């Protein structure tokens, strides 16, 4: 699978590995502050609200609402995305608070609306990486 996959692959690091490990197990994990209970994404060394370093990983519901989106029609790089267009990249607001970029799948681009409820749909793309995509909520 790794040899055929041409799209950018995440390079997990010390901060982000737990997130990607979670995706591999089909769990959407967010950093949550033990001091002020704020959830944050992307992961960072401190809680950006209260600057506490006491952070824990917590499973999110996977429910979100579409905040903004684009429909990519011109593929760049062409050799990687020519068979993918049109595809949708979106910012979604997770029920737990943080915003996340993702792809919206399982629907036509024209049907996407501001505030549309979506739910996580994990897609394994390599031995190591599973991406959290979103689809219209059932």
């Amino acid at each position, binding site marked *: 699978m790794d040899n055929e996959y*041409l*799209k*950018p*692959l*995440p*390079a*997990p*690091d010390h901060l*982000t590995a737990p997130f990607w490990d979670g995706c591999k197990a089909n769990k959407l994990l967010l950093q949550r502050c033990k001091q002020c209970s704020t959830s944050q*994404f*992307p992961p960072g060394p401190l809680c*950006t609200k209260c600057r506490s370093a006491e952070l824990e990983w917590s499973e999110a519901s996977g429910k979100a609402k579409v*905040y*903004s*989106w*684009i*429909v*990519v*029609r*011109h593929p*760049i*790089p062409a050799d*990687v*995305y020519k068979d*993918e267009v049109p*595809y949708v*990249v979106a*910012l979604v607001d997770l029920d737990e608070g943080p*915003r*996340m*970029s*993702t*792809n919206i799948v399982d629907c036509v*681009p024209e049907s996407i609306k*501001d505030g549309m409820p979506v739910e996580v749909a994990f897609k394994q*793309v390599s031995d190591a*990486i599973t*991406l959290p*995509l979103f689809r219209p909520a059932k």
Partner: protein
Amino acid sequence: MWNLRDQCAIAGIGYTAFTKNSGVTVLELATEACMKACQDAGVNPDEVDGIISFNFGDSVPSMSVATAMGLKDPQWVVEYSSGGNAANLITLAATSAIKSGLAKNILCFRAMNGRSGFRLGGGRQMAAYGVTQFTAPYGWITYPQAMAMWCQRHMNKYGTTKEQLAHVAVQFRQNAMQNERAMQRKPLTFEEYHSARKIVDPFGLYDICLESDGACATLITSAERARDMKKKPVYIMGGAYGGGPAQGEDLFDIIRWPDPAENFAPYIADALWKSAGIGPMDIDVAEIYDCFTYSVIMALEGLGFCKPGEGGPFVAAGGIRRDGPLPTNTHGGLLSEAYIHGFNHVIEAVEQLRGEAGVRQVPNAEIALTTAGAMTCGSAMILRR
């Protein structure tokens, strides 16, 4: 807050041809523009003791240009690793260096083979490190794709339309048709705008700036010294840089940005106007960073030329026309003149304030605005004659 009102001036400007393929190195482009800026000011390069630029992986170091020009004793040699957001910041940094005594005469430049060499619009590296691991794997890779997300948010929130974006593209093209430097001088009709190839919704081809080879340079010095130089000084009246608390890990990172319906502009507006002691109504000509049609609307709203959400109606009502209340991007901007990362906006502002803009001249232009950047951080200046 920057507090050097009228204490420094732009004494010289220089630029190369703007082309798709310069056929020369970036070092040659930068050196040509810098030498022309010295000649324009009537300053012997021996007297230049500072040089600053900004780059995005496609420039040439200040040090190289200083060496190529044979500068005798450069004492302030600075590089910002940054995008168009720094196009005014480097000038503000030069003023602080001049007033603190670090240097007397400073060259500011931006040089790039942005079409024939490293193409910013062409994408990014495919290995996704840092925050990019949460964006690029979804095929969210290029700058048009990044800015389209902001634009769609503005459309969701305020009902901004493609027809309003078209006014920006068409108006700037009309300005470029009057500009012999401009790379795009063919007429652009509303019909052509709307029927253009779709790149990434909501953007079509004409919402996206050009890719260019070229260089621009200015010579900055104290107001006193500028008055003894060849050209009439253009004073740096005000300036600001910023973007609030969530500027991101790189220019692309807007995951934590509070509301992509607004960019850095409202975060710097107060400091900008206070530093100059004037307000939006006092601006005679505006050169606004237009990497995309939509970024003009965000700047107009964020700096107070109109209220949030009214930028679309403002441009559609002729607000940015050359004969309107705010003549904007009189050279054609990044959309139709050239993409020299916003530094060409500074050149145009200086020519307007000097009265050197020929058929493009805005009558009696005394005060100009330049902005730089379109996303989470940026800079702006107020210049006066």
